[in-house]
């Protein structure tokens, strides 16, 4: 399974629009450390992509390479069809980004920084920004400096969303948000993407946030994209199989796309990446086994993939 093999699924989503983000064989080294090891990914217009992976898997580095904030060691990326390293002003105006560590002018008041930011964007939507401030429960007259980490993150989100960006990129947006703010953020992301005209890429390791809002999931592991597909397709195909054979099972089962495997005499538990009727039929006849198929949620899939 690789990043480009399932593009067929995406046709309905993007309606023939060109993909907003493409990267091909993207590598990034920091001195001797290889952080990205050949990432291929195509994000169709209108997708809401959840980028998941453990700490240190390369999520932030990938985002920064895609946005032109880091120069890839090898390979190339395009953003709105342009080289992200030399992104035009027009494209920058269509982009919203919240980095993991937020930097805001500490001396400004909340409403001042909103007004200040709005001046940079032709498409700034004051009513929408106002609604976002309210949803995020931010004190308009307070200075930015003494705000808590979570409040600063909320403010950064308002500033990134205020012009209804065509592409919104959020690096760990929910890390320091309380549950209410998290809900409001997800609600605002829904509002933004409801017209199918806005694309979102956000990294997180809180998978439950993704399951409602995401159309696609990208799994990054040790600098490689191990899985990229529609969330529905992933849930339909990544399954845990419980085998019960009429004889003793071999310790190493030959099963296509197997992830983690536990074999105990006549029983086995196997997670697979590509379940379908053919696979079940294969296993049934090869091992003389009855099979129970268990559904996995995103967190369980994440864990299974991590143990691959």
């Amino acid at each position, binding site marked *: 399974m690789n990043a480009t093999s399932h593009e067929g699924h995406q046709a*309905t989503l993007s309606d023939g629009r060109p993909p907003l983000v493409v990267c091909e064989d993207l590598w990034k080294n920091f001195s001797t450390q290889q952080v990205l090891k050949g990432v291929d990914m195509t994000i169709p217009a209108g997708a809401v992509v959840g980028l998941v992976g453990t700490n240190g898997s390369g999520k932030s580095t990938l985002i920064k390479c895609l946005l032109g904030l880091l120069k890839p060691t090898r390979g190339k990326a395009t953003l709105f069809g342009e080289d992200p390293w030399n992104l035009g002003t027009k494209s920058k105006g269509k982009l919203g980004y919240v980095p993991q560590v937020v930097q805001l002018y500490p001396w400004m008041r909340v409403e001042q920084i909103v007004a200040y930011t709005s001046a940079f964007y032709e498409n700034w939507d004051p009513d929408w920004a106002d609604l976002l401030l309210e949803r995020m429960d931010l004190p308009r007259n307070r200075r930015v400096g003494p705000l808590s980490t979570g409040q600063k993150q909320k403010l950064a989100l308002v500033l990134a969303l205020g012009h209804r960006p065509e592409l919104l990129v959020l690096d760990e947006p929910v890390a320091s948000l309380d549950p209410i703010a998290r809900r409001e953020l997800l609600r605002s992301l829904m509002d933004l993407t*409801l017209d199918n005209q806005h694309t979102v890429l956000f990294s997180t390791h809180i998978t439950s946030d993704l399951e*409602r*809002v995401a159309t696609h999931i990208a799994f990054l592991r040790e600098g490689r994209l191990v899985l990229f597909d529609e969330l*529905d397709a992933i849930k339909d195909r990544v399954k845990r199989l419980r085998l019960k054979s009429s004889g003793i099972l071999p310790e190493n089962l030959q099963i296509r796309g197997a992830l983690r495997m536990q074999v105990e005499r006549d029983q086995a538990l196997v997670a697979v990446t590509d379940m379908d009727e053919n696979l079940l039929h294969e296993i049934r006849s090869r091992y003389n086994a009855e099979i129970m198929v268990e*559904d996995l*949620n995103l967190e*369980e899939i994440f864990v299974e993939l991590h143990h691959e």
Partner: protein
Amino acid sequence: MGTPFSLLFEIHPSSGVPIYRQLMDQIRLLIASGRLAPGDLVPSVRQMAEELQINLMTVSKAYARLEAEGILERDRGIGMRVKPSTLPGSSEQRLEQIRPLVDQLATLAWQMKLPGDEVLQLVKNSLDLLDTREPQS
């Protein structure tokens, strides 16, 4: 329907079952239990997505699959409707089912000495009225 449609649904995002499948299952259930009747409109994709706070594509996928399964049908320019379930048996068999009622009507008409062509005309008028009220597929 008095209650908001979305209250009829229970979506579990963190279940292993994809949300579009949950939607499909629950729409099938609503039809089976009679809460959705043939001809009923289901809410638009956008409305469902908004009310259930799920992605637009998820709803549209569920509707498209139910349409392919013959459970919903697209009413152009209006929306998706619950498709009238296909009727059991051949038309001859179904005709047989109403024979007792026809016999009853014929007996009554004969006893009341009504002319046959006028009785037939009356039945035809009733059928025509139904035809204009609800187009049958």
